[in-house]
């Protein structure tokens, strides 16, 4: 009795906030409700059939792949670069670290608004300077610029998180191993390529999985505040499309079907992650 009692809070939370809504989504994905929400019609897998044949939905998959690939690459690349610099610091290392961790505390939506103000086509500081340089920045019309901006805003806060892990990973590499490589004749870049980066690989792989999941699901706020998925569909990633079709377009059945598909994608990513953690290289 006691074990069940102790588990109960967690079970209740999981049931109320995960199993119930997930079950509802699966249930709703099998129906098409009428426009007034008075009755719904059972259509089996019709919603899924429609989605997979929809070119906009398939385009959203490609957009998501590009977006999450770029966010992962930019946020991890920047973080690794900063971690390498911070690892070499002798004076003031603590201050730099604290400053670099700050952006992580900023909520995605707030980060989105910050970047929006900087790049606003009329009042943005950065777009104004770009204008002085002769570049006409307009992410409201230009699809590439819109993608670039949401990638930058989403990566920015993420750099802090990745930085922490990379720095910890770098500091876990024994100093003497680096020194031995230096004595063996390896200069900084050779050491990084042949010793440091391979020894960081468990950290890198972990961050890769975590960042892809982040880019898939936690960037809603950024996209919503900056581009609302536009121009056209240029920045409509899967999660944003669920919201747009469901809450804006009122296609509740189709939206539910999309979230069921996303549920499978999460499941797949989680399996990859667990497989990796189990098999993680131990030195």
């Amino acid at each position, binding site marked *: 009795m006691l074990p069940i009692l102790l588990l109960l809070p967690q079970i209740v939370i999981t049931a109320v906030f995960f199993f119930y809504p997930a079950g509802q989504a699966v249930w709703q994905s099998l129906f098409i409700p009428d426009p007034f929400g008075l009755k719904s019609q059972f259509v089996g897998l019709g919603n899924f059939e429609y989605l997979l044949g929809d070119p906009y939905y398939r385009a959203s998959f490609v957009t998501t792949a590009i977006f999450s690939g770029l966010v992962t690459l930019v946020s991890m690349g920047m973080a690794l670069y900063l971690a390498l610099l911070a690892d070499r610091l002798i004076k003031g290392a603590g201050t730099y670290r604290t400053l670099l961790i700050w952006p992580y505390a900023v909520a995605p939506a707030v980060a989105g608004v910050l970047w929006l103000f900087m790049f606003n086509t009329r009042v943005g500081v950065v777009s104004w300077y770009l204008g002085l340089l002769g570049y006409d920045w307009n992410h409201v019309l230009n699809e590439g610029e819109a993608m670039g901006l949401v990638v930058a805003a989403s990566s920015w806060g993420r750099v802090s998180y990745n930085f922490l892990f990379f720095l910890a990973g770098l500091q876990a590499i024994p100093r003497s191993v680096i020194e031995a490589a230096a004595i*063996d004749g390896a200069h900084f870049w050779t050491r990084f390529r042949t010793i440091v980066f391979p020894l960081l690989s468990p950290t890198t792989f972990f961050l890769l999985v975590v960042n892809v999941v982040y880019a898939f699901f936690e960037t809603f706020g950024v996209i919503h505040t900056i581009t609302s998925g536009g121009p056209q569909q240029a920045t409509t990633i899967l999660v944003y499309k669920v919201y747009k079709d469901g809450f804006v377009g009122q296609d509740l059945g189709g939206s539910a079907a999309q979230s069921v598909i996303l549920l499978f994608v999460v499941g797949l990513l989680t399996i990859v992650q667990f497989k990796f953690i189990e098999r993680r290289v131990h030195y």
Partner: protein
Amino acid sequence: MATLKLNNIKKRFGSTDVIHGVDLDVADGEFIVIVGPSGCGKSTLLRMVAGLETVSSGEISIDGKRVNDLEPMDRDIAMVFQNYALYPHMSVFENISYGLKIAKTPKAEIAERVATAAKMLQLAPYLDRKPRELSGGQRQRVAMGRAIVRKPSVFLFDEPLSNLDAKLRVQMRLEIKALQKELGITSLYVTHDQVEAMTLADRMVVMNGGVADQIGAPLEVYANPATTFVAGFIGSPATNFLPVAALSSPRAGAATIGIRPEHARLVHAGTGQTNGMVKFSEALGAETLVHLVLPAGESFTVRQDGTMPCPQEGEHCGIDWAQDSEIPFGADSRRIEIP
């Protein structure tokens, strides 16, 4: 093959002086052991020779060439670290050949040199293994292999045996000695273990608080320690020290005398140079160490043959020694010559 010369080497960390000027001349092929307690600056000294620490003042030269401002890789040295510092993601072969590969040595030559080193170190069956699949002694050998395969001018060893168990340590000690004799490479070896220092060194440097107290051949240092520190540090059990005031007859100019445990013997109470009460004794088989307390409270150790009769705890004994076996020290703790 090279000579190594340290000229008035000093090291400061911030405002703290850790090495106060060390001079050392190492001949070609010589095996020098730097020995001292932890914190005496011996590892720092070695790391300065390796180029892993900057030199605050003074000059280091290898084969007559000043190397102070050279990077570690340009000094033609190889180093064996205390924790071996093997590359954990590389096989034994890759570990040993790493330096050669960076130097762009032809593949055939790499294979040949690694094979020679592996044979010398009995590593041939393990070349495909990762360091984590090796025992402590084998890892130690891989670290040695990585050093010898590059044929450096100078070998540097930073307490290479302190992570091994006692039996393996004795065995590796002999192997290192044999290997160094065979290769004839000038070596600098840092340890806190005076037995390693005594057995390995052609000459040893005894360091104390950033100063080289004495440099000399092991037996010479043992017989004629230059300071009370050296007398107390080299030799186990340690030298007994007695203030001259505690002795029945004065010693001209000396404040303290040192007596090696093997030079003293137990006699009947009331005879001999001084008296003491037996605190406890350690019978080691071949020899017995008898620990006594003198009336003034100092402890005194006598090393005697295992076959000799051993007094009981609490028994009072006389302690005697030949006066010419005494090592006299002045008030400044330095050895003095008594005419």
